[in-house]
C-alpha cells in the first residue's frame, strides 16, 4: 500500500512537476495574500520553513525572518536557489530538520498531493515535529466545495496546461536578481495585473498560473480516481499498476500530428491521456487549474458525460479510473460509445448539444491552436496528470484534531478555492 501510494505520487505528482517546472516558473508568481500576511506577521528573527516551496515564491517575503524552503522537485528547487533562497531537496514525509526548530511552517497546496490519508497525517505530523511549541503552521489545500460548483469525488487527476504565450507577456513578472540578491515582490507585480483575470476563476490555485480571458474557450477536465484508501478497504484489489497505465491499456495511439482535420479520434490503445494532454496543451484557453464548469449541471453518474449547455464553452468529463490491475469494464464501454459517435460526426463541424461535447470542443480548440507552437508541447504529450485529493469542509481540521494532538487549530476558512487552516503547536502532557 505504501509502495502503491508512493508510486502514485511519483508518477502523478513528482514527475509531472519535474516536467512542468520550466513553465511553472514563468507563470506562477502569485503569492496568496493570506500567506503573505502570515509571513509578514512573524517576528523579526523568526525561522520559517516552506515545506513544498516549489519555485520559492513565498521565500522572498519579509526580510527580517530566515526562511528555508524544501521540495521534492529538483528543477523547482534549483530555480528557487538561483533566486537567492536557501532550499533543500527532501520529502515531506521525512523532513531533515531537527525538532522544534521552526517558529512557523507553511504547507501551501502540498498535502493534497498525498495519495492516502495516512500519508497526509504523517506529513502534518512531520511538520509539527519541526515546529517549536507556540509556533504556527499554515496549511492550504484544494477544496472540494467551490462557490458555484463541486468536485464529484475527492480523488482526482488533473491535467496540466501550459499557459498560452499571450498571458505570459502580461503576467510574467521580471525575474529577480541572480543569486546574491533578493527577488522583489514578484507577487505584487503579478497581483495587480492579475486582478481582472481573477474574476472568473473560482479555483485558481496557489501554485497555478493565470487564467485565460473570458473570451477564450475554456477546457476543463478532470478525472476521477478511486482513493487508494478505498482500494485498501476492499482488500482484494491489488494496486499494482499506475492509473495512467490503465488508461493506456484501453486506448490506441491516435494520429496527433494530423491536427484538427481529423477531429478527435477517441481512443483505442495507448494514448488517451496523451491525447487529452495534447488537446489541452494546444488549446488556447489553457485555464490552468480551472477544473470546474460554471454553467454545468453536474449529473455525472459513473461514466456519463455531462451535457453541455448552449453556447457553453467548456465541458467537464468524468472518467472513472481505478488504480487496479484490471481495467474497468464500464470505462471501456464508455469509450467505445464515444469513439463510435465521434467517427460518425467526424466530418461534421457543427456544434452540437448532444453527448459528444468533447468532440466539438476538441475540434474547435484544435483548430484554434495551430499557430501556437511556442511551447514545446512534445514534452507535454506524455501524461501530465496530477493527482489531487480535494478536501471537504472540515476534513482538514478534523484530520488535525483527531490525529495530531500537538496541534491546536486556531483558524479555518475557505480562501478562494482552498481550505486554509492555521494551527498552533501546543505542549502535550502525558500523565
Amino acid at each position, binding site marked *: 500500500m505504501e509502495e502503491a501510494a508512493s508510486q502514485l505520487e511519483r508518477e502523478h505528482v513528482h514527475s509531472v512537476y519535474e516536467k512542468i517546472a520550466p513553465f511553472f516558473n514563468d507563470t506562477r508568481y502569485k503569492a496568496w495574500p493570506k500567506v503573505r500576511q502570515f509571513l509578514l506577521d512573524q517576528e*523579526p528573527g523568526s525561522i520559517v520553513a516552506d515545506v513544498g516551496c516549489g519555485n520559492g515564491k513565498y521565500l522572498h517575503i519579509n526580510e527580517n525572518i*530566515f526562511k528555508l524552503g524544501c521540495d521534492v522537485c529538483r528543477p523547482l528547487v534549483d530555480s528557487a536557489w538561483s533566486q537567492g533562497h536557501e532550499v533543500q531537496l527532501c520529502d515531506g514525509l521525512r523532513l*531533515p530538520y531537527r525538532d522544534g526548530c521552526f517558529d512557523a511552517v507553511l504547507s501551501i497546496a502540498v498535502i493534497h498531493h498525498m495519495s492516502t490519508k495516512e500519508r497526509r497525517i504523517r506529513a502534518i505530523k512531520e511538520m509539527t515535529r519541526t515546529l517549536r511549541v507556540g509556533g504556527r503552521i499554515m496549511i492550504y489545500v484544494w477544496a472540494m466545495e467551490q462557490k458555484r460548483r463541486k468536485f464529484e469525488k475527492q480523488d482526482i487527476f488533473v491535467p496540466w496546461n501550459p499557459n498560452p504565450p499571450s498571458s505570459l507577456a502580461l503576467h510574467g513578472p521580471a525575474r529577480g536578481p541572480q543569486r546574491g540578491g533578493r527577488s522583489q515582490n514578484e507577487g505584487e507585480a503579478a497581483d495587480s495585473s492579475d486582478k481582472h483575470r481573477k474574476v472568473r476563476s473560482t479555483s485558481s490555485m496557489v501554485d497555478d498560473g493565470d487564467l485565460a480571458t473570458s473570451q477564450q474557450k475554456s477546457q476543463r477536465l478532470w478525472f476521477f480516481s478511486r482513493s487508494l484508501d478505498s482500494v485498501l478497504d476492499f482488500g482484494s484489489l491489488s494496486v499494482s499498476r499506475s492509473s495512467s497505465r490503465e488508461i493506456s491499456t484501453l486506448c490506441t495511439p491516435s494520429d496527433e500530428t494530423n491536427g484538427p482535420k481529423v477531429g478527435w479520434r477517441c481512443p483505442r490503445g495507448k494514448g488517451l491521456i496523451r491525447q487529452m494532454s495534447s488537446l489541452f496543451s494546444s488549446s488556447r484557453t489553457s485555464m490552468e487549474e480551472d477544473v470546474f464548469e460554471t454553467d454545468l449541471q453536474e449529473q455525472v453518474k459513473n461514466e456519463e458525460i455531462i451535457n453541455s449547455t448552449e453556447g457553453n464553452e467548456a465541458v467537464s468529463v468524468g472518467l472513472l479510473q481505478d488504480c487496479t490491475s484490471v481495467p474497468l469494464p464500464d470505462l471501456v464501454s464508455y469509450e467505445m460509445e464515444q469513439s463510435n459517435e465521434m467517427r460518425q460526426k467526424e466530418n461534421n463541424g457543427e456544434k452540437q448539444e448532444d453527448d459528444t461535447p468533447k468532440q466539438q470542443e476538441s475540434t474547435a480548440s484544435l483548430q484554434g491552436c495551430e499557430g501556437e507552437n511556442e511551447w514545446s508541447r512534445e514534452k507535454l504529450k506524455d501524461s501530465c496528470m496530477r493527482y489531487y485529493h480535494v478536501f471537504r469542509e472540515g476534513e482538514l481540521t478534523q484530520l488535525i484534531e483527531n490525529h495530531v494532538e500537538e496541534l491546536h487549530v486556531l483558524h479555518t476558512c475557505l480562501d478562494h478555492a482552498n481550505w486554509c487552516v492555521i494551527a498552533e503547536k501546543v505542549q502535550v502532557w502525558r500523565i
Partner: protein
Amino acid sequence: MKLLTHNILTSHVKGVTKGYPLLIKATEVRVNEVEFNPQFVSRMIPKLEWSALVQAAEGLGHLQDLPSSLIQDYENNEEFLRKVHRVLLEVEVIEGCLQCPESGREFPISRGVPNMLLNEDDS
C-alpha cells in the same frame, strides 16, 4: 547551503538517533556579502546550536575569531554580531556533501542545494 541552514539540518536515516550535526565535506565554498542586520542576528542566536555552528565553521576553515562559546550580552556587541553574521549567512557551501555522524550516509550538496532525499532502504 549556508551555515545557518546547516545548523538546522539533521540526518533522518532510519534508526539513527544521533544524526546531528551533519559533518560537512565541502569541495567548493563561497563567501558572499550579505547585508548586516544586527537585530536579526541577535534574535537568531538563541535558536542555534552554538557548538555545531563553531564546529561547522572550523571544518570549513572559516572559524576565524568566532568564540567557541557564546559571550554574555551579545545583543549589544556589534563586533561579535558581525562575526556571527559572517559565519551564519555569508559562508556558503556550493559543492560537497553532508555526512550523517552515525550511519555515515552522505547527502550530496550540488549547486548550493543539499539533497536530503532518502532511498527506500534508508528511510
